[in-house]
């Protein structure tokens, strides 16, 4: 176990706290789903295992991990995008509206 990896871990954790404490409640669901997709980074570990192993057991366990991690990554990013696609500012959502009705927004 590498100690400098531990330093990296601590710094990244500080960074995660700083980054997230700024996100408004509106975006919590996409945030959860987006950060969940990022935690699918374990896909890298799965590739390293499946790709470099001759041992059959390890290979098939790794294969299962690879499939699951890929679902997490691909599905996670796509579904986050689908949610965020719907967050549009006023102008974009009501293209047909007359300029005068904008007064409603507070």
């Amino acid at each position: 176990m590498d100690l400098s990896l531990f330093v990296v871990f601590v710094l990244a954790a500080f960074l995660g706290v700083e980054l997230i404490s700024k996100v408004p409640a509106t975006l919590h669901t996409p945030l959860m789903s987006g950060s969940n997709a990022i935690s699918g980074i374990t896909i890298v570990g799965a590739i390293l295992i499946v790709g470099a192993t001759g041992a059959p057991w390890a290979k098939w366990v790794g294969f299962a991990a690879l499939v699951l991690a890929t679902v997490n990554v691909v599905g996670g990013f796509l579904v986050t995008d689908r949610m965020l696609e719907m967050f549009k500012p006023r102008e974009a959502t009501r293209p047909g509206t007359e300029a005068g009705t904008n007064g409603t927004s507070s």
Partner: protein
Amino acid sequence: MTAIATLAYLVAASLFIVGLKRLASPRTARGGNRLASVGMLIAVVAALVSQEILNPIEVAAGLLLGSAIGLWLARTTEMTSMPELVAAFNGFGGAASALVAGAEVLRAGAGTFRTYSESGETVTPIPDLGAGDLAVVALSVLIGTVTFSGSFIAWGKLHGRTLGAFPGIRILSVLIALGVIGAAVALVWTGGDSWRMDEAALWLAVLAGGALLLGVVLVLPIGGADMPVVVALLNSYSGLAAAATGFVLGNVALVVSGALVGASGLILTRIMCEAMNRSLLNVLLGGFGTEAGTGGSASGTGEERPVRRTTPDDVAVMMSYAQRVVVVPGYGLAVAQAQHEVREMADLLHDEGVEVVYAIHPVAGRMPGHMNVLLAEANVPYDQLIEMEEANPDFAQTDVVLVVGANDVVNPGARDDPESPIYGMPVLNVDEAQQVVVMKRSMSTGYAGIQNPLFFLDNTQMLFGDAKASLKAIVGELKALQPA
């Protein structure tokens, strides 16, 4: 070669960081998510080219199969089921981390170990996994597996399955936890000078089995409506599991990303608990999820006190003469899937010159921000969505508040009645408005299982029925009222 891979992982991690940062604002959030996905692509490519791929077919098959499933789930799942989907994906991620850590032990035990350094490929015989490595493996398998089974219980509960606790579940949890710790210690024990691979595999299996059960018994007693907190916490765990796996593999991409997600999940969990004015411990011990919830709704279904009823037609007329209408959506809106009807109603009112905004409580709905997603799906512009702190001072100047399937988040008892179980939780002060219309199907309670004094106030009228049906009726009447 490895140096370049490490740099690529660093680029990927930086893209994750910038992406998460951009997720903090609605205008940049989509771009941020895309940046993060580009980072993931870079990390995957780096992993593919940083070593010779011995099993190209398996790797390609795994990637293709996973992508296909992910694509299909992401495309076909309805917006109202997002919480379940996130829970499921989360479980997959946790399981993958546990499996990778386990596979690393199996690989180390299989007799060869390939490392690629600047001087080329080296195939060394079994490097004895040290006790330290095995401890990290145990941690990764434990956290990952608990994440997996816990997420799927959460998924089931979110899906509406009635999965309840059974007597003695607490004692069972403690016993399982002890067993899991024992297996972890035994696994670490096999490390050292003469590493015994078959023993290690055995303990690994015991550990994984125990952790699987542990996830189940830990999440079962937690109330259904607390599942969002559980999912946020499990999200943090899946990050930690990825980081632990990163320590096992010595991979910087996993450590950075795992730590980022671990920390962000924890912060999110804390924000959600604060919004409910409960401690995390209270949530995890099932404070008032199942018991109180069931008991409460039983005691609450009877209409003891008189309430004023109203009809969709009256509500439509009342609102069309109003200056300012505030819509308060709640969990019932998601159940009724009535977001499009709400938006249609708001548009009609808007065309008649009525100011319509939506007041969103932080824990309304199934997950934090769930209402925002639902309403965004129905094309409600996000500048009409007002957060609680901003909304509360203006209720006194509001003519009509339309409560659509919300209950606990508009309970004035949380503010005024120290006896109330949710006393202290910040709520939307809708009772300060001229008129309040509450749309729900019956007098039954919401999640916290307590009756709502709001319903019995003089300025409150109840509009019973499914929210979607009621809103349709209101929309029809509004159209009929229109001059043109």
